């Protein structure tokens, strides 16, 4: 899979719509994500970014439209094929936002070993690879811990380890830095920046604008299940009207020198121009 030029995009999303029982989550969404690209999906709660991630992960399937993965159509039927299922799961890793969902095993070691076990790697190789991954994430000392004995930052690192152990080509991350303290947040972001040497495709759903430039080369902004905008992080961060409309920033009331209080967008991102 390491040929220099592969014509198909990592993900090609065409006019995709998806409904939960009674709520429309995505409405005719299209996007192309190239191999090796680092993409951020921006949007307020309920804008459809988590749903999109789950569609890309082959956990939901579109009601209308089509998603293809390296040129192959990603359908429920395709994933019933055992060979495609295992190769797809091996190549695409997803980290869920809620650690109580992502971490379902009774201990850290079991958690990280779960993926390789499902893919039926040789057992000796699993032990070795799990050990390496725990070392890489700096969590070897936690191997026998139960998830309820971990801090938020530790949980996130275990969650990442549980996916990275398979060395996926595509990493889907749902709010990786949500609900973490600033130092844990920084650790996760640092790791993501260095991970994979830019040969990996990383798709991050987030509403954290502070780290946007570090984790993404390109952004899509979602609003009510449709595409509101796309562009470089810098361009998106400068479009204050867009950010306000899509509820990514909120007009910030503060008193100016003249003494009059007025609504006024107030970005705290590091725009260095």
């Amino acid at each position, binding site marked *: 899979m390491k040929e220099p030029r592969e014509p198909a995009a990592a993900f090609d999303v065409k006019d995709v719509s998806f409904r939960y029982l009674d709520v429309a989550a995505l409405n005719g969404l299209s996007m192309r994500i190239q191999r090796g690209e680092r993409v951020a999906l921006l949007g307020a709660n309920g804008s459809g970014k988590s749903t999109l991630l789950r569609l890309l992960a082959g956990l939901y399937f579109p009601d209308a439209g089509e998603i293809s993965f390296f040129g192959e159509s990603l359908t429920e039927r395709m994933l019933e094929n055992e060979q495609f299922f295992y190769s797809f*799961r091996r190549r695409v890793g997803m980290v869920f936002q809620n650690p109580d*969902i992502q971490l379902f095993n009774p*201990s850290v070691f*079991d958690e990280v070993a779960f993926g390789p*076990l499902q893919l039926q790697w040789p057992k000796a190789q699993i032990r070795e690879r799990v050990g390496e991954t725990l070392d890489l994430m700096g969590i070897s000392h936690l191997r026998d811990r139960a998830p309820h004995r971990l801090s938020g930052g530790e949980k996130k690192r275990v969650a990442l380890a549980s*996916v990275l152990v398979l060395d996926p080509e595509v990493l889907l991350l749902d709010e990786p830095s949500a609900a973490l303290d600033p130092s844990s947040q920084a650790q996760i972001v640092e790791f993501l920046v260095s991970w994979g040497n830019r040969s990996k495709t990383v798709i991050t759903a987030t509403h954290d604008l502070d780290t946007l430039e570090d984790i993404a080369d390109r952004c899509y902004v979602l609003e009510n299940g449709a595409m509101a905008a796309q562009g470089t992080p810098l361009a998106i961060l400068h479009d204050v009207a867009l950010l306000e409309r899509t509820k990514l920033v909120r007009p910030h009331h503060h008193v100016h020198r003249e003494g009059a209080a007025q609504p006024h967008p107030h970005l705290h991102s590091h725009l260095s121009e």
Partner: protein
Amino acid sequence: MHIPDGYLSPSTCGVLVAAAAPFWYTALRRVQKTLTSRMVPLLSVFAAFSFVIMMFNLPLPGGTTGHAVGMGVASIVLGPWASMLAISIALVIQAVFFGDGGITAIGANCFNMAIVGSLVSYALYRLIGFRATLGSARRVMAAGIGGYIAINVAALCAAIEFGIQPVLFHDPAGAPLYAPYPLSVSIPAMMLGHLTLAGLAEFIISAGIIAYLQRTDPGLLRLSAPDAADYDSATPAAPEAITFPAARKLWLGMALLLILTPLGTLAVGGAWGEWTAQDLSDPQARAEIAAVSGNRRPPDLVPRGLERLSSVWTAPLSRYAPAFIRSAAFGYFVSAMVGVGLIVVSCLLASWLLAKSPPKAPTAWAPSDRPRRKSFVEKTLRGLVEAMQRTLFAEDMAMARGLLQRFDPRVKLIGVAALVLAAIAVHRISVLAGIFLAAVVLAVLSHISLGTLATRVWLAVAAFTGVIALPAIFLTPGEPVFRLPLLAWPVTLQGVRAAAFLILRAETAATLSILLVLTTLWTHLLGAIRSVRFPAVLVAILGMTYRYTFLFLQIARDMFESRESRLVGVLAPSDRRRLAVSSAGVLLDKSLQLSGEVHMAMQSRGFRGQIRLLDEREMGVANWLLAAGFVAFGALAIWLGR
């Protein structure tokens, strides 16, 4: 209702495990077929939910509180088969971790509550709610009555298991070796508590949660009511109910088991076999037994049907069998098995008939919208926090560097099993005391302080079993050694011995099981279970259940804490009940939602429904020797204490 260790003889435990096994097997097969890969997270999460529900203190009329088992809810939402598994798993975790119910009595407890309970409540729910629409009040009543009767039938099973013990298992002098009360005492004693408190608690939780689900998530009621009026076309088709062909194997197994029971008792023997062998060869003991048997004539309160059944079973055997098979005791035991078998079979029959009935015309379904009230729930809160602390404490202890902590978990599993078995098998109090002492020494060497044992185990067991054992001192027939002043109640030698046996056995077994828990991490214990060829699926479910039990304890605690903080004044009992039930409902909603999400997380990492686990490493000679040492110790104790 949770039978502790030491109340039932090893042979009774064995028979009940054998009785439960075909149900577990069938349930596993059926559930794997119908629910595919969703089954693993669903069962785990539901077992964790049942576990936490068992910790809820439900306010009852009269100002008391009671605990429910949750078999009503489980069997309605999951169907009887999955419910059996979920509740069994919850019971296993309770027994291993929280000392609720004995390790050797797991088969009995699962049989009574998980299997009989699920079948009875499901059958009654279907029977009573038969023609009603999903949202009807009738279904709420059906669930409540189903739960009420189910827990009472389960209690009756337990009472019968208790009641046959003194008839079957006593030492030559007539002192009962296990539960000391005959059926005439055990049945009224058990039923009194369950017809009132526990039954009501089960009624409230079953009816309440079904009412809650009718409002919030009626799709969950579809599985157990495939014929009821349709209200939502988007609901996925429910897996089929129990059908005759699928149940046929189980029927055969059950029939086979009932026929094999007498043989099984003979083979397992234990106390009873020994009693006969010894006494039949020794003329003096024979005379003694005869005298004692006079006292132990079947009590008058025993239901006629049982007596008739016992003669049915013993009559055809009488000509060929040795004398002891003709004894009333044997007849009782077999009749009890037959009685339980009949209950189970009639439930299966009922659900089979229901599955064949034609669908009913739809009727309007009107959701009601009652407001949720707030109230205090300190008792529950305290229980939840305690359970969490216990778990954390156990994990900390298991990380300590004591003697047992260094052993391979398999050695500990084998060792503790051997010692617990010895503790419930021996017939001499001195040997029992020796095993107890060994357990204490092991505890001290493993840095478990006597204070911990005293507060966590000994006091709790003494309080519970002590109350149960005390009346036996007076009630057991035998030679009076002392009379209570004023009341002139006779204290019999046999009674004192019976009480001593019961308390010491319960204490020893509980001390041994807490040793295992406090020195072994749960994941290591699971690995040990796995290496003795326990099905991988169940090992995985047990692991997930443990993981989510803790999460649900946390969620429930937070829920009750936030309610408590908003409490103003005292609420009427009915409001308190509503609060407890709606909390349980919220927890159920969260549980089921979580199970769906977890399933996705599992899928995304390559899970297709086939559970795969790492095998344990080889154990090594030293550990094998240790395990052999434990087994030899246990065997020696049984031999010395025979």
